[in-house]
């Protein structure tokens, strides 16, 4: 187990690399979902305004 975390002495490089990639992946997922939610909210608002204009 120890050996796994130690990564043959390269731990200081390997783990940050994986961490950065993980962060980028997670950020992409969050970002994409938030962008969609924002577009939906925007569309909802536009429809509301159009409805009121009638």
């Amino acid at each position, binding site marked *: 187990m120890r050996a796994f975390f130690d990564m043959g002495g390269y731990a200081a490089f390997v783990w940050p690399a994986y961490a950065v990639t993980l962060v980028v992946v997670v950020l992409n997922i969050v970002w994409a979902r938030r*962008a969609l939610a924002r577009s939906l909210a925007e*569309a909802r608002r536009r429809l509301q305004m159009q409805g009121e204009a009638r």
Partner: protein
Amino acid sequence: MAWTWFHRLASPPHVYALAARLTPWFAWPAALLIAAGLWGGLVLAPPDYQQGDGFRILYVHAPSAWMSLMVYTTMAVAAAVGLIWRMKVAHAVAASCAPIGASFTFAALVTGALWGEPMWGTYWEWDPRMTSELVLLFLYLGYMGLRAGIEDTQRADRASALLAVVGVVNVPIIHYSVTWWNSLHQAPSVMRIGKPSMPAAMLAPLLLMLLGFTLLFVALLLVRLRGEVLARERAASWIREVVSG
């Protein structure tokens, strides 16, 4: 027959519904493949003869680099389709690609630097691959900057599409010139994707990661695409059902 398929792809409500349906079919397999790749790469694969356990950065660096190029190409193709056939959906695809590609280019650069320090003794070496990667990041940023700078969505779509096409023509030229400039080109055999000078136990997780990331890209694209398609359909009636449903 082929044309009906193509025409349906141009229809925003159809694309929206299709994207929503398809997303889980890409997202879950992606998660599985990446998990399997991580397990294979971090645990099962034996340490490299020269680089020990340090080579395992490959399993995040190569997919990131692959993503950066694949996404840019997709973006450029979608842009070209949008320009030639004036398809809003194609422009929506291109717009969705940019942030995904840019972030993975960033990841490729950082993981590349982290790999470079223990292996070559320096975080940054101006080798052709990394330098071209850095230029690619700026191409993405320029694309996103141009989009942001133009208010009218249609004009922004078309201007950035032209930029993407001009960019993709330039990428091989830039790469060639950077390679030409740099004689310190180091090609660790481990990085030659497609030429397995690696034992199967090392190669298999790499292929899993590459495939997994590709599927992840499609899933992310589909999610973003829905939002982009919505934004380009101001007053269409089908939106009403989608939004309230």
